[in-house]
């Protein structure tokens, strides 16, 4: 037990069957969707692990299991040595609650519409009695609002009186309120303009430098991920297919899916480079292809890929790489 966050062989299956009656009439079997399949990773204290990957690849499902909001079908999550799901450890988990926070992908759903914003932000401080008294609490609410680029006087407003990005900043302020040590951030800045995004990302980095915060950081913006992450895990259809530090991942991506993903980044320089869409159909997660789930879209797929699930070896799960059939791509980025 060494890493701060340890995730082992995590799996989550959802029952997506129609109702019993409809199934009986239509003679359909039950249907299951494997959202997350056999995922393992560690996050060291003070580190930022980022998860990227196609929409629906299971990133939010991993996030919810890591913070203990969703029970896994199989596998384990331990934070600072405390199991997040087992029947034992319930008391230890209570002690952990203050130290873990989550910023949700959907800020609308996560803010109580009937509470004023100052109450929303103060709630974690009250719940865990982190401040000496109400005055200290109020002062901290003001300070947090300022840190996320809002005005302390905005505390008297209700969530619906804010724009989308302002609400996201309220959610970020609340997540920081009880001085957590580990924050799971699901698309924390995608609702923000680039200048406010820069302010929030700089703030998150500063807090990490000062207090050794640990982040699990989910974002589809590869430039943001590159800036924030110490390591990046690339997910595809419920599995991690490659995990590497940003320099390596962006400089020499190995997994064929990672390469396609990097080619699909929009071209801001407007150099006329044609953005390469990721080829092929997005597979159906209810009936995933056998073998490597990426095989129907992979230029390097062979018979082994169509039958055998590639194990994670040295940070990448791909038969072609293991067999030396694919040299790592060298991406020449302009200096």
């Amino acid at each position, binding site marked *: 037990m060494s890493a701060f966050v340890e995730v082992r062989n995590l799996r989550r299956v959802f029952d997506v069957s129609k109702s019993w009656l409809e199934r009986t009439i239509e003679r359909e079997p039950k249907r299951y969707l494997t959202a997350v399949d056999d995922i393992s990773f560690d996050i060291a204290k003070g580190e930022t692990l980022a998860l990227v990957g196609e*929409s*629906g690849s299971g990133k939010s499902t991993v996030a919810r299991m890591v913070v203990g909001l969703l029970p896994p079908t199989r596998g384990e999550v331990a934070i600072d040595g405390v199991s997040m799901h087992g029947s034992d450890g319930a008391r230890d988990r209570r002690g952990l609650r203050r130290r873990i926070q989550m910023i949700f992908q959907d800020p609308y759903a996560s803010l109580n519409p009937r509470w004023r914003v100052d109450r929303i932000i103060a709630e974690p401080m009250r719940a865990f009695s982190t401040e000496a008294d109400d005055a200290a609490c109020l002062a901290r609410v003001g300070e947090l609002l300022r840190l996320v*680029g809002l*005005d302390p006087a905005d505390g008297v407003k209700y969530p619906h009186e*804010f724009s989308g990005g302002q609400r996201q900043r309220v959610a970020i302020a609340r997540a920081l309120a009880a001085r957590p040590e580990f924050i799971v951030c699901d698309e924390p800045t995608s609702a923000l303009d680039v*200048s406010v995004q820069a302010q929030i990302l700089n703030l998150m*980095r500063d807090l990490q430098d000062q207090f050794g915060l640990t982040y699990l950081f989910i974002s589809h913006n590869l430039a943001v991920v590159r800036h924030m992450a110490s390591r990046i895990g690339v997910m595809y259809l419920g599995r991690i297919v490659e995990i590497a530090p940003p320099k390596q991942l962006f400089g020499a991506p190995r997994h064929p899916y990672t390469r396609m993903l990097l080619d699909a980044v929009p071209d801001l320089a407007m150099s006329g480079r044609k953005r390469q869409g990721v080829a092929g159909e997005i597979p159906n997660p209810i009936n995933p292809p056998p073998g490597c789930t990426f095989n129907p879209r992979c230029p390097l797929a062979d018979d082994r890929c169509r039958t055998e699930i590639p194990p994670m070896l040295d940070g990448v799960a791909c038969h072609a790489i293991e067999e030396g059939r694919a040299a790592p791509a060298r991406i020449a980025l302009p200096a």
Partner: protein
Amino acid sequence: MLRMGDAEMSDSVLSVRDLVVEFHTRHGALRALDRISFDIGKGEVLGVVGESGAGKSITGSAIIGLIDPPGRITGGEVRLNGERIDNLAPDAMRKIRGRRIGMIFQDPLTSLNPLYRVSEQLIETIRTHLPLSAKQARQRAIDLLAEVGIPAPERRIDSYPHEFSGGMRQRVVIALALCAEPDLVIADEPTTALDVSVQAQIIEVIKKLCRERGTAVMLITHDMGVIAETADRVAVMYAGRIAEIGPVRDVIKAPLHPYAAGLMGSIPSLESDGETRLVQIPGAMPRLSAIPPGCAFNPRCPQVFGRCRVDRPEPKPVGNRIVACHLHDAQISEAAA
């Protein structure tokens, strides 16, 4: 396409003039939109970017007549294909919404009812607007879901919204907005929750719509990459006003307004090494109740000078764009030349 004066553009699908939106609160009227004007032509994509809270979503809501009280339009006008729509009765407006203007809201929850299956919601919307049988409408719904990249749509169509991932829900909302083949689509952060490959797919759907059906699109997004790829022109908003509007390449590569320049300078790049800090514009946007006199950007502007603190800069043509900044007033540029 450049707008000047009040001349009606014959090919404008949408034309907004001096639009003002205010929220009447206990502390007085807050002006969320302060005299904004722009046009969108047939088959054109206008990108709208700007500070979080600048009024982008409110602009979209004002156009479709969906501002929640205590907010309301207190000045200016909105025309769709030349016809005024800002003063229509609620019933007439409801007919336009969905049929002639399709909307993709920033908040996907407002568009999808959690209690109904996706199929029910799509089929109902399609049949309200198009003369199709239930069976035809279902087929059309499945085709639309396939078009926005939902895998196995014939199977997933009967799911409930919560059974989809965030990005998939957003794609359902996009399908819903397109299903009646509207003249104008207002898309508020349509690709925010989507990964780059699905994003490319959605952008392709939007572009195809413009190309093949001449649909006008107002595309609100923070993602400059998406703007660069999709938009013909871009409007940059700050504190309820339009700071600069012009061809997308010019505005992104050589912004004229200091706020636009600050914004473009904050874009994180893929080449970043992660060691350096991201550039941010110092300070924060003023609250609506404390917009400074003169230029709203003046307290944060690196090039501020005397007049900026007194006179509000009016939008003026500069080459093929419109810029609201005293630095680009004709006299000053001439004096500098």
